[in-house]
């Protein structure tokens, strides 16, 4: 666009346009100042209304409790201030520790497999030797389109001995049923549903990151005689680290907040209790036993835990990036 100075602002096409700019900017600054605030206004308003206010309300609730009034055998409840009572009982609940323990086991299976498979598929898609790339990429991505509730239902049928094609095979071979829905197989089964759902999405993230690597990087390595595997390990993976870190964080947050899969499978097996993971405990308190303050306190605890874990991962990632070879 040609730099044409407009007459109204009083600037001239003098040889020193810079000196005339402050005048114009001062006149324009009024508009420039307000514009960004207007642009972010809808987002900020919605954020305050639908995120900030509910969070504040939840925190306030976590300091309340219910007290019985009215005498008689039933009476009804009134909300009163309770200080840290809810936090005390939530943190002292042995079920909570057990719940986090289960999350740990679940996470140990789900996060590495998620990352590992997504990385593997992405690398394979990027490898020149692979065929059927379009088909595979699309097929692996399909589960992303399936809602969690539906996915858990489908896999439920795949797991139950009576309707499972896998157990059918092992039964025909005389090996009995595969214990998908028993302890400890249940962890793998649940992790599988989650992995199945997001591996395609994560694969695409890592793959597009790989595609962004300039080919000069490879040429140098190939000229040196490196084969595809070595290139993958030495060149591609390090350069895809940002994508990997992001995927890891999402995986971790997803693990800490796992809820849909255990809830949908719960009616089909006896090994999943109503307090199997923290989020199910929150649901129980909020919707089943009508104890909102306790649900709020547990939510705050869980949210803080998520922040801490994410911060740790980011710190580790940054330290690796700045300390190691980028």
């Amino acid at each position, binding site marked *: *666009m040609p730099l044409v100075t407009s007459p109204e602002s009083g600037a001239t096409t003098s040889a020193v346009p810079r000196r005339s700019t402050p005048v114009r900017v001062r006149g324009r600054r009024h*508009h*420039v*100042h307000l*514009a*960004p*605030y207007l*642009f*972010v206004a*809808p987002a*900020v308003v*919605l954020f305050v*209304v*639908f995120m900030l206010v*509910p*969070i504040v*309300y939840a925190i306030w609730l976590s300091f309340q409790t219910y007290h019985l009034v009215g005498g008689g055998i039933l009476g009804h409840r009134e909300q009163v201030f309770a200080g840290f009572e809810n936090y005390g009982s939530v943190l002292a609940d042995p079920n909570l520790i057990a719940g986090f323990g289960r999350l740990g086991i679940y996470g140990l299976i789900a996060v590495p497999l998620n990352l590992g*498979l997504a990385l*593997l*598929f992405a690398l*394979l*898609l990027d490898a020149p030797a*692979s*065929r*059927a790339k379009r*088909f*595979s990429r699309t*097929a*692996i*991505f399909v*589960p*992303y389109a*399936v*809602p969690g*509730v*539906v996915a858990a*239902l*489908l*896999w439920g*049928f*795949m797991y139950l001995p009576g*309707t*499972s*094609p896998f157990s059918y095979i092992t039964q025909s071979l005389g090996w009995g049923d595969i214990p998908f829905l028993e302890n400890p197989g249940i962890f793998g089964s649940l992790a599988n549903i989650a992995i*199945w759902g997001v*591996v395609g999405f994560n694969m*695409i*993230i890592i793959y*597009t*990151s790989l595609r962004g690597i300039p080919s000069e990087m490879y040429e140098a390595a190939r000229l040196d005689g490196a084969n595809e595997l070595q290139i993958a390990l030495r060149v591609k993976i390090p350069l895809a680290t*940002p994508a990997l*870190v*992001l995927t890891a964080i999402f995986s971790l*947050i997803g693990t800490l*907040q796992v809820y*849909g899969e255990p809830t949908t499978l719960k009616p089909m097996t006896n090994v999943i209790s109503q307090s199997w993971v923290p989020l199910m405990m*929150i649901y129980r308190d909020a919707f089943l036993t009508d104890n909102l303050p306790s649900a709020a306190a547990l939510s705050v605890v*869980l949210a803080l835990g*998520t*922040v801490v874990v994410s911060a740790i991962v980011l710190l580790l990632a940054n330290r690796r990036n700045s300390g190691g070879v980028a």
Partner: protein
Amino acid sequence: MSAIATRTGPRKKADRGKVLPTVVLLIGAIYCLIPVAWVFVASTKSRSQLFTTFTFTPGDGLVDNLRSLFTYGGGQFGLWALNSVIYAGLGAVLSTFVSTMAGYALAKYEFKGRSVIFYSILGGVLIPGITLAIPQYLLLSQVGLAGGYLSVLLPVIISPFGIYLSRVYAAAAIPSDTLEAARIDGANEWRIFRTISVPLMVPGMVTVFMLQFVGIWNNFLLPFVMLSDQNNYPLTVGLYTLLAKGSGSPALYSLAITGAAVSIIPLIILMLFLQRFWRLDLISGGLKG
């Protein structure tokens, strides 16, 4: 590849190298497709065939199942599908609009409060949906909106992830010089946004739209808490109620399976169609050094 080895050794190795990646990819593809294939086969089975025949044997009940599905509750399935389209379509459009404006401002302007706003909104990702759902419900009830379409639409418009993506894309795709030049030309900010920035941001906007559409379409918890009238349910909640009838009435597995099969199809088609417009490298773009 250049030099072709004539010795048998390297050629064998090269052949094995060629086949293995493809095989692994195909295994992954099959793994991902099995349940989907299953649901399509299972939707052809009648109610009694569902539990009596081998998993992958097709049945003959497809037409009956479809008919039962679309006449259930006086045509509720059709309503659910329509609701999903409205919530996801309208929600994604509005969300893209809001996210684009916010991301653009955060990327291309220096203003007080910029970091605070950005990091606060990003922090929203860490809060579990359940925690927000009930207070949101209570809030919307105060203004009489609970149970209506807005109660499911409004909370999903704010998307921290969408704003993050928009910001990354705006920073990368819109040269500041161009904006400066336009300002010097005398254009006001909205005009600049509309005529210069938005066209440059289109691939990013498509990505945000797509992610929001799928996210809202697949969302279960929010509509489950907000809605009580079955006619307002989206597909996720509707299918869930077919299953969760409690021990008083049997779960309508046949209907739910057929419904699941039917509801997956449009989303797959949409994704296949929009595939070429994506810029998912945006997602890790913000972290690149």
